[in-house]
């Protein structure tokens, strides 16, 4: 049985939970997939998951109302003892990174983090994960007797690939948590306007290169970026000229990103830039030069004038 640990905040499921369910279904083979939700008043979230799992286990406790690594690790360990899953899958979120290693160690379980692919099904499966900042991909086999814990990289599996069927039963599981065993005292989360933009978190990026020709023209790219909910980024020459701030730079002397969609406008694709973005899931390149190296890593390429093509894309988007 594969147990998926759902993540929620204030009763709302994190989208990555669906991606983890998709991963679990890919791994499962014949095994059933169950989901577990920790928290307080998570009934609605449980019902959302129900069509995608064979059982949804709700674990509610006062100590789990606010997330703490100690609370969640204790709860997960007890759930694992009770349900005896072969695998425990979690989304590779900041929260998972905060408590999963603790739970895994206490369970004597292997924890394979940041997994991008699953090879095979069931207990013979191996797991792909990036190493050396994405320069290499490792195929990893777990060892040991406990449940195999796996955290799934955000965006590696498609949330819409989750197979749905009849709504599963929702069961409750009680856990014992001694409040004094929780050593963290969290205060309420708050939002802060971050100084530097973190392109690493962006799902879509529109990047401009020399082909944009002038600072004023960047507005064209920005319109496209807002139309598709993307962040604006640039290759090095644009930032060197001061047309965009340095924290928008992608490449060996800037940030490395791997968003779902990367649109390269007027970027030639010098290797210094490619190393910063070639891990993106879908790469679209628009450039006048048919020999530009960017086309070697692009999924879709258009040889043409970006000043004609981008407006055409904008009108297409408005239609849809």
């Amino acid at each position, binding site marked *: 049985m594969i147990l998926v640990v759902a993540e929620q905040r204030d009763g709302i499921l994190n989208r990555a939970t669906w991606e983890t369910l998709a991963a679990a279904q890919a791994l499962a083979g014949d095994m059933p997939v169950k989901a577990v939700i920790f928290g307080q008043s998570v009934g609605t979230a449980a019902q959302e998951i129900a069509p995608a799992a064979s059982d949804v286990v709700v674990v509610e406790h006062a100590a789990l109302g606010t997330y703490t*690594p*100690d609370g969640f690790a204790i709860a997960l360990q007890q759930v694992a003892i009770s349900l005896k899953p072969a695998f425990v899958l979690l989304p590779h979120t*900041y*929260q998972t*990174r*905060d408590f999963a290693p*603790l739970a*895994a*160690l*206490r369970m004597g*379980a*292997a*924890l*394979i*983090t*940041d997994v991008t692919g699953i090879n095979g099904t069931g207990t013979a499966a191996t797991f792909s*994960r*990036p190493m*050396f*900042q994405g*320069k*290499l*991909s*490792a*195929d*990893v*086999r777990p*060892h*040991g007797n406990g449940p195999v814990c796996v955290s799934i990289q955000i965006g590696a599996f498609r949330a819409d690939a989750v197979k749905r069927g009849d709504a599963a039963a929702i069961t409750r599981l009680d856990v014992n948590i001694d409040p004094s065993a929780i*050593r*963290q*005292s*969290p*205060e*309420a*989360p*708050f*939002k*802060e306007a971050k100084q530097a933009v973190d392109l690493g*978190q962006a799902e*879509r990026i529109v990047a401009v290169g020399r082909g944009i020709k002038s600072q004023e023209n960047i507005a064209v790219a920005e319109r496209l970026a807002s139309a598709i909910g993307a962040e604006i980024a640039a290759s090095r020459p644009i930032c060197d000229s001061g047309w965009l701030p340095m924290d928008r730079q992608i490449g*060996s002397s800037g940030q490395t990103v791997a968003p*779902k*969609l990367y649109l390269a406008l007027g970027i030639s694709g010098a290797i210094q830039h490619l190393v910063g973005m*070639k*891990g993106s*899931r879908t790469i679209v390149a628009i450039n006048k030069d048919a020999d530009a190296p960017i086309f070697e*890593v692009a*999924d*879709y390429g*258009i*040889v*043409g*004038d970006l000043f*004609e*093509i981008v407006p*055409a*894309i904008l009108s*297409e*988007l408005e239609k849809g």
Partner: protein
Amino acid sequence: MKIAVCIKQVPTREWQPRLNEARTWIREQDASYELNEPDAYALEEALRLREKHGGEVVVCAAGPARVQQVIREALARGADRAIHVEDDSLASADASVTSAALASAMGDERFDLVLTGLQSDDHGHAQVGVMLAERLQMPHSTIIMEVQIEASTGSGQAGRLRVKRELEGGWFQWIGMPLPALLTIQSGINQLRYATLKGIMAAKKKEIRKAPLPGGLTPSQQIVSLALPMRSKQTHMIGGPPSEAARDLVRRLREEARAL
């Protein structure tokens, strides 16, 4: 305050990957090494806390002999002494083994605070810090941006920490914890100081305690093979006048790639 900083030596960012014959690990001869970037920020944070609250900073590292390079760098920047669990097998060890190796050498020291980087630039497991906390029987918090120490009241009670933890999407959270505790530190939270000439000279005289790798450690996972990520998709060139090309592209992005 007795502060430990766990540091790791990793291949430099510019290193081009080359694999050994069996493709189970990298070819180390071709690599140049440097201090893992998040660990550098952890070290800087520790040095600042020592400047503010007094005490000593001890760097702890697990790895082959070449790890001396980053230990000396940390000592040159101002750490007081070092602990090195030396063994060649630690170069490719998983988080379970690495945390056990470190804990075996650190346990008796009774550190008040342990800082690690949030993850390493080579393995990227993001597990050693949390596992080490458990092995040292300390509470932990991860991806920390700011550390405030509320000193002990002096009546035998240990002090307390208040730390700012980074959440996704621009959210943050303050967390209170008792000392001793372990924190994994986010990159970029402070400005790294340079090693001075005097610091480099003094580093040569500072103690580096060698500790043996404990026996009986079993790995929790194994790398079956390493590969350069392959691009399985072909480049699809879209032709035609701009309006047609745009239409084709948008359709494919929506239906094929599901990127819009």
